[in-house]
């Protein structure tokens, strides 16, 4: 076993364990349990649009600050 492997193996284990946990959580909650009525779909779509606009504004501010 190389020294690089010995040094990296604890980190590898931690990341593998974390990824496994995230994967398990994604599996556990894969199916949304709320009744997906039209109203719920509209609300979720509006939220996505809202967040995209907000993130767009943040990027605009960031790049316009860089240009100054």
């Amino acid at each position, binding site marked *: 076993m190389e020294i690089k492997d010995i040094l990296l193996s604890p980190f590898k284990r931690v990341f593998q364990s974390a990824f496994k946990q995230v994967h398990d*959580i994604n599996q556990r*909650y*894969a*199916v*949304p349990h*709320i009744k997906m009525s039209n109203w719920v779909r509209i609300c979720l779509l509006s*939220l996505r649009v809202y967040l995209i606009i*907000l993130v767009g504004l*943040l990027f605009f501010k960031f790049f316009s600050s860089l240009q100054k």
Partner: protein
Amino acid sequence: MNFWAKLFYQYRKLWKAIKIYLMIAGPGVIVMVADNDAGGITTYSVTGAQYKYHMLWFLILLGPVAYYVQEMTVRLGAVTKRGHAEAIFHAFGPFWGWFSLLDLVLTDWLTLVTEFIGMTAAMSIFHVPPVVTIIVVCIIMGAMILQGRYWTWEKIAILFCSVNLVYIPGAFLVHPTLSDVLYNSVIPHFPPGGFTNNLFFMFMANIGTTIAPWMLFFQQSAVVDKGMKEKDMFWGKLDTALGSFFTVMVAAFCIIVTGTVLYGTDIQDAAQAAIKLMSISKMTGTLLAIGLFDAGLLGAICISLASSWAFGEVFGWAHSLNHKIREAPWFYAFYFFALVSAGVVVLIPGAPLILITLFVQVIAVTLLPAALVFLILLLNDEETMGKYKNSLFENIVNGTIVAVIIAVSTLYGISAIFPDMFK
């Protein structure tokens, strides 16, 4: 039954009700009083200094707003036995779940930094070095959760909540004009100068301090950790109503203090207000500084727990304050990591603390609308809530409140990105 027997019966009935309330009380009062955190006290101090008592009526209106939003978390927690983070994962799937959880952790950590900024600023007035303040705060908060009982933690937190009432004697010390205070509290009006951009900014700031994303997550998780059931809901609601009364009272008295003494003075934050007050009335300034420290401490207590509970719920770790450290190591490790890292950031020379304070508002705006919309949707889901789902009246009231909060907090967040917008 004669008169005395009836009186004794009524007394026993009332005493029993008080005992039940005292057993169930806690999450509502704590979350509401902690809502007046270091940032909140700064907002109220500046509001008083700029507009005297003219915004008291508006602040009183915010009491019911806070109650209606937080009351929904009581119902959701008591019925589902899930914290808000877990409820979002369960109902809306991993995308919205991870978005809410990671955004919450970031918002909470940044807010925690601002609480430390407030606490160190307050203690600096008493010549306590920031490093000592941060170490003492970490020890106090560590001791509070490591004793291994939710009940004890809650009662200590309520003790700190009572310290927040120092603004009441503070207001009496500065002798405000009672008729002015009463008039401005009950008659809605604009301050002299009319509706200006600055006034609009102050309206937004006051609404922004009333509902924060961590409050939803904290109260729902606290309701679950306390083991509140459907039958306890009335008492949970009463607890929340009492808490909203206290939060408005503390905020109003803070405004009365700075409005009476510092009206027309240019102040930027609560610590500066306390220093200026000390030169006029040493006792009042001291009370304001103590109040600021306590506000930061209460905020830190609740915010750090909100994140730890949320992570524990989703990752399936043991995450109750009733657990010992060896039974819930990840829960406590996460709590201490957030606490200590936020404290360390404040001590770094040249750390961008003003930028962090502004960034909190922006990040909170990305989470608050989502958390509020999820709350309304969950409260309307018959399968989840059964007979405890929102009534038509509750939907009208809560829907209006949520729409206004989303609009105003978005404008507030945008004003942090583009500061000249409302100037």
